[in-house]
């Protein structure tokens, strides 16, 4: 039995509260939602897992990461390449090298392989990234995003670039992703409240001071980085296993900014912030998208306004940074809203 610290126990309480919210939203959608709404909520949950993966590194180490969508893409493509039936791959990837089109595995093994591949890649990159100062690290993550995207686009024989990679078995439904999102919430909270998480956050506040106290910053950053990448790979797998088709486009800048805005709005320092920001923006943007189509509201026909959702997204980031740089939640997790501090 793993012994949990005091802060981890209160973390579990918080995670349980968040899980309850996730279950309620999931069940409500499952029983009352239309097909379109289920799809919408599913993608919100996938983005939630992405934002959680982002939070593990960004929130604890406070280094802006821009490569998260790339890791999600790596996870998605790796799983898709493993799981897609041979007969489909023979058609869609006739020129695939290294016998990639000559095998197919079951979804669980495929997912495990995809996670392992992403984790190894993240580890290798992380060895360098964790040593850089904040802006330098951000630039390298940017470079990673550009490089990975270029590979997806260029190796059409493997990834099909901007065309659809189709035929992935659709093994997941909404209840799956709700369960996985809850698991991700628990993992993120336990990490945040673990000795590693606490030391990492301390070192982000005062690098020199924490180092003087014997905190091994690089190692802690690396752990958070790889853990984050694993969660991102899981998000990618969830994405692929539900939609059945993927392409390179969703794993690039637009998605990077979208998920970044979610984390920033909610507050990157807390898991609660990640959850809150994801749902606020997912559902808020849906409302704005409705306005974009030029609907008739209160008898007034509004003009079509393509770009409105982008403006809203950017404005959310700018306003959050100007008015409340630590996001809505700041340093508070959900349980502190209910329970009085006991220490």
């Amino acid at each position, binding site marked *: 039995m793993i012994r949990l610290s005091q802060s981890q126990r209160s973390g579990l309480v918080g995670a349980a509260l968040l899980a309850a919210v996730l279950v309620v939203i999931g069940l409500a959608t499952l029983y009352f939602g239309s097909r379109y709404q289920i799809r919408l909520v599913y993608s919100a949950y996938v983005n939630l897992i992405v934002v959680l993966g982002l939070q593990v590194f960004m929130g604890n180490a406070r280094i802006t990461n821009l490569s998260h969508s790339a890791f999600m893409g790596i996870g998605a493509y790796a799983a898709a390449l493993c799981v897609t039936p041979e007969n489909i791959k023979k058609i869609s990837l006739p020129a695939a090298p290294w016998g990639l089109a000559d095998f197919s595995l079951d979804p669980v093994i495929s997912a495990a392989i995809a996670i392992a591949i992403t984790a190894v890649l993240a580890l290798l990159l992380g060895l360098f990234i964790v040593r850089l100062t904040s*802006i330098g690290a951000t630039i390298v993550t940017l470079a990673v995003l550009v490089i990975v995207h270029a590979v997806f686009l260029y190796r059409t024989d493997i990834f099909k670039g901007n065309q659809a990679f189709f035929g992935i078995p659709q093994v997941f439904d909404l209840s799956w992703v709700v369960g996985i999102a809850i698991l991700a919430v628990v993992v993120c909270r336990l990490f945040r409240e673990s000795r590693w998480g606490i030391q990492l956050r301390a070192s982000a506040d005062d690098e020199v001071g924490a180092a003087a106290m014997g905190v091994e910053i690089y190692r802690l950053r690396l752990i958070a980085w790889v853990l984050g990448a694993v969660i991102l790979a899981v998000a990618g797998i969830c994405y692929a296993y539900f939609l059945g088709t993927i392409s390179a486009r969703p794993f690039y800048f637009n998605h990077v900014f979208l998920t970044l805005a979610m984390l920033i709005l909610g507050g990157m320092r807390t898991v609660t912030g990640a959850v809150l920001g994801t749902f606020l923006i997912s559902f808020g943007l849906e409302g704005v998208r409705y306005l974009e189509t030029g609907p008739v509201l209160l008898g007034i026909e509004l003009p079509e306004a393509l770009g409105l959702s*982008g403006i809203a997204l950017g404005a959310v980031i700018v306003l959050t940074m100007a008015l409340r740089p630590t996001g809505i939640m700041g340093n508070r997790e959900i349980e502190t809203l209910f329970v009085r501090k006991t220490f």
Partner: protein
Amino acid sequence: MEYVIQQVLNALSFGAEYALLALGLAIVFSIMGLVNFAHGEIIAVGGYTMVAFASLAIGNPVIVMGGAIIAAMLASLTLERVAFRPVRKADPTTGLLTAFGVSIVLQNVFLMFVSPRPIAVTSLYFLDWPIEIAGIRLASLQVFETLTTIVVIVALMLFLRRTVLGLAVRAASLDFEMVRLTGIKANRVFAMAFLISGLLAGLACIFIMARRGSVDPHLGFDPVLKAFVACVVGGFGSLPGAVLGGFLLGAVEVAMLVMLPQSLGGMTDAFVFMIVAMILIWRPDGILSPAIEKGDKL
């Protein structure tokens, strides 16, 4: 031999463009630690100004180019007032994310109020004609670009060394509060840095537009991404570093174009970014980075 000279000239003109943009980023970063990702949209503002002139049937190149530069400078100044002043004292991450937000807003404003599709601008084609000197073929635009960058660097150097405001901009990169304690108004220093940054973006805009001949909402994104990288490689916040990084990036890019086999053509950017990442791993703070102290200052 001629081939080599031609490629060197290519590298110079690529590098000149990156250096122009990187200088614009670096001058703002040096005084306020802001990584201004919205720089690309300043370029786009210049581009759309050209479109506006074209639709008014104004083709006078002086007006078109001057107008674009002035529009870029005004846009840069406006962003400082509206978006960046509230985060002036914030940490670099907050500034970076704000700039991202501004960039997204502006791109979508162009998309919504102008057009998501590219709009052709033909008024600057006259800048580009082929010339041949001693068997070396090159485009006039490349020559203009390289010369302009050299002139800009010299002018900037004179400004930074000979004027009080220039000295203040340099001093502010080290200790802004002390600059205020000499009685120079902080707002003037910020305004000047953004004005220069806008001017550099406006100049870059002319060359980018002359080459591409069209403007779309994402016009500035790719060039600024590269300039951003050039800054980091040179040492973020260092002006000589920005120039060095710009030309280095130009050289790497041309080298990649020349050396990579045709079949890997689509991977040029990937290789460029990979080399940049390796430079950073070799020198984490960039090649000419200003000294950074992590602890408290005495």
